């Protein structure tokens, strides 16, 4: 994350929808958006890891963000699923979402506390919220999602050994 500077700074957030919530991720975390193709399953991993794909010679691990953010998620638009690729220090990851929406330019000063309706299990992934005209844009931290999934993975490993 960029260093906080006193003067207001605006950032772009790419939005997507899971269930009734509108989420946003910093566009810097989004390398590209791709339609979902056949992936290689990875046995022994939690459900939230979808598999791996080959992206121009690099192996991308796909995290099903819908499943991370909502255990009860049932995709309504199964045929129009996308994933966005994010190059993190720990590897190249990609996140499945139901469909991507607009890119919002958000001023840092507009970021506020999470609204009260956000359920507890979601809060651990969120860094803030922004009031839009109709609804709230929940700002998602990719690294928090990843560390959560990583925890899930190691739990599975330990329970077997």
């Amino acid at each position, binding site marked *: 994350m960029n260093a906080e500077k006193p003067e207001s700074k605006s950032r772009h957030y790419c939005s997507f929808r899971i269930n009734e919530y509108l989420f946003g991720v910093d566009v810097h975390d989004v390398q590209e958006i791709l339609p979902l193709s056949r992936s*290689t399953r*990875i046995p*022994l*991993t939690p459900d939230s890891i979808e598999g791996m794909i*080959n992206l121009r*010679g690099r*192996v991308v*691990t796909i995290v099903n963000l819908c499943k991370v953010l909502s255990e009860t998620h049932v995709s309504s638009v199964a045929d129009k699923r996308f994933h966005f690729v994010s190059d993190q220090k720990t*590897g190249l990851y990609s996140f499945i979402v139901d469909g991507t929406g607009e890119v919002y330019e958000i001023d840092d000063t507009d970021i506020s506390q999470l609204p009260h309706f956000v359920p507890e299990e979601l809060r651990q992934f969120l860094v803030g919220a922004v009031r839009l005209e109709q609804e709230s844009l929940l700002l998602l931290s990719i690294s928090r999602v*990843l560390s959560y999934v990583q925890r899930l993975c190691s739990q599975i490993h330990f329970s077997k050994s």
Partner: protein
Amino acid sequence: MGEFDDLIGDFLIESREHLEQLERDLLSLEKNPKDRVALVCIFRSIHTLKGNCGFLGFSKLESVAHAGENLLSLIRDERLDFNEDIATALLGLTDTVRNILQSLDNHGNEGDTNPSQLVQTLKDLQKGAKTVEQLEAERAQAEADQVAKAKAPKPETSPDQGPGKDDKSPDLLTSSATDVLPSLAALEAASNKPQKADTRKDPGDKRSPKNRRKSNRYGESSEAKGLGGSKSLLGTKGPKPSSEKPAAKSDDKEPKSNRRPSTTTGLSRSLLEESGIYQAPKLDGEPVLKGSDALDSEELLPDPEDSRFDFPRDPTQADAPVKNLEDTRLGGAPDGTGSDTEPELETPSALQSDTDRYILSEEARKKLQSDTDSFTREDFKDEIQRGLRDQLSESAIIESGVLHDLPNTATTLDQSTLITSGEHNFMDLMQNLGENKARDSQQTKEVDAFQEQAGMTQTLKIPNLPEARRDTNRQVAETSIRIDTKVLDELMNLVGELVLTRNQLLQLATIAENTDILAGCQQLSSITTRLHDRVMKSRMQPIARLWSKFPRLVRNVSRLCHKSVRLEFSGEDTELDRTLIEAIKDPLTHLVRNAIDHGIEAPAERLRLGKARDGRLLISATQESDQVRIVVRDDGAGINPDKLRARLLERGLMDAQTLKTMSTGNLISSIFLPGFSTTDQVTMVSGRGVGMDVIKANIERIGGKIQVSTMPGSWTAFTLTIPLTLAIIPSLLIYSNNQRYAIPQHSVLELLRLSDERLREFEAFGDATVWHYKGEMLPILNLNEVLKSASADPAEDAGQAPKTPNIMVLKADQRKYGLIVERLGDSQEIVVKALSRMLQNIPVYSGATILDDGHVALILDVLGIARFAGIHQIKAPEVEFVGEDAESFDDLHSLLVFSLGDNWRMGIPLKSVWRLIELRRHEVQTLNKQPVLTYEEQLIPLVDLERFYDLDSDKEKSEQDEVQVLLCTHDKKNVAILIDQAVEIVEQQFQIQAHAAYKGCYASAVIDGRATDLIDVKEIIRLTHTTLLEAPGQTQLET
């Protein structure tokens, strides 16, 4: 100032190399303070460093280097003995210099490192130095002693030397010694002053004592040759160019050299230093040899250097040395025929004269530095060319008129250098030459840049960079170049992609069934493989590169911890990809530090425990196909499980309940938990509780694994298994649940397809399935079960359920197991890609790869699967300490235990057993009255252990009895050992209790609570093969 930046970049690289060399030499000098060669190297490194710093204006660096140099010069002159404190101070110097270099690299300035304390330390250390007078006295004494010795046996002198000569030699030697000493003093005094002080003097003033001594050499050589009637250039031509030369020089070079103020000092100093040391002697070596065969070429080395640089000086100088010479050396022998240096060599004082000579040449070099403000590299080159022309005028190369062409001459120069350098390494020379020239031209350029900066520029710009030099640069630099590692990485990635594309193309070509395309693809394929091989090689570095830093580390740490440690290496030449070398650097450093701080006990404690005083630390590396295994092992206190438990509790890392149920293996592994530390005190070295977990994370990041094994009280070993992530490995594709997985081919021993009948041989053994196969209990796993990926469609699964399974016999470490797989695929060369971090904790995968159809497949980790499925507790493999007391470590062996007679248990090392077969007694044949067995067309001598040991068994023996036979091998010889009944295979640590009481046994041990004698297969083979000379069939094998 881009060029300046380049120059600094080069300076940084070069200085770091100097530092590394310096450290190595310092350590070897500390081990052996008499190591003159190391000392000279150290001095040279530090001197070059100083020169470069001075030139670039890094005052801090220069002051440090200068202080170090002063100290070293005292040592070199034997006025000070090298000791540990000096070593520490000088190592401290390398650290300081390294810090400053780092700061230069990062911030472009020398940073805020304050070297004054270090400089003071270095100065303080000089205080103990002997005065010149003391040294002089000692020297004179030593010389006198030697002379006295020399006199006694009357050295064998060459016949053409007059008898009078010998009588003179003692005087000659002593007088030379006394002559050296004042000049040494002057030298020391001069070097303590800022270098520039004596450089601006006009040539006439330079006849200081130190010059005079050098001039002696000059005079002496000219005298020798002149009198000897040889046609050496040095003798006869020497003075002549000197009269011509200044004229020529003043015409075209004068303005320039005058415009070079103090900067020239640095420049020409380093130039001459380099050229003086490496080049000059060689360049002129040949002509001298030709001129005067009587002289030993080695003896002459300093001479040409001296004479050459005397050329440009005013002719009066030529006379003076001769006079001088007559005064001091040959006063009594004006008619000295031949060389007067030879007697020196032949007397027992040869050694002394050797060092003497070294000092002389050093001295000469010093003087040259001061001389050279009016004498630039061009002049030098001109001189050489002129000299060469004169000398080699008969040679074909020069006759061909090439001589007038500067570039070509320079090349010829190189060649003639190479020709003369018979005893020296060709490449070294080339490199030195290349480096010198590269630096030379760069520095010349830089001088111009400087001038420009100082506003002194006149119209003339780069006439002082002749094309010739550029040309030679190019020619010489070709043998080796520096490549940015990024370029290598990129190259590697591209080759990886190329391999993938090749695979895809091959597959398409096969489908297309067009033979032309296929042929083309196959050609492409083989080229790709070769290319890949080359690129891989270019990135490989021996691990010794990394280890070279450890002696210093071990020295520092063991001093800090007051421990005494002997460091040993094995497998230094194991090559690793450079990225991996970089990646394991920190973890290994940490492990070494830990081993000394926590592992190895203090000397007193060790002695009390009956261990050797010095702790041993072994670092070994071995490559096993696609993995490199690095073991750091100390013979220290080991890890005490009880203490560990207490510590874990105390730190709150684990609760008592978990600890109780935990196996020792897991317990030991808990040292990798974050926040763990066994030491109460935070020392300088370690114990901050950040360590093992970081090491583990670092190793795992590169896809490696770390394991620890220990024997409380005896040793601890850390085993790093580093996969060659970048490697392309041959692998076998298999299917599970319609998805492909790759298994590295090197771990596949056999592929079997079992009939239903044999499937029934599977037995349940606890909750595991085992199968007796080739006399072994083979644990069987089902890949689908391991991966918990039952077929998605249960109906389909049910329909085909009892199909004939494929079993892969896999090798993990030293164990084997069988893996049932649905379907086997092709074999394919795959590029290993690391898994993302979150997947690295899953033990069954070692990586991923992209297959030829573009899909991703997981690579299965054979060892990881075994561990994951709980087949066995994998223990770290053992590494033997090399050396005589290897036995002090308990052995971990796989033993096959069998019973013999009524109540005798014997064990045999499993590694020497290759088959266990069952047969009936009558199948045993006899040859030469010796029982033999035919097995797979081989005749194998058979030993019936019962008869061998004359046992009377109660059991009735019948020809129809089934007996078990172990087929054993040692050193390519086979023997069959008939036993009663194999009992079990044990794998455990055991202590050898006693040496054997029986023939054919080597020791006894307690295994599973029972006394067991251990069979010595080698001995048994020796006993049986004496009767049966050689096993047929083995002869072929042995070729």
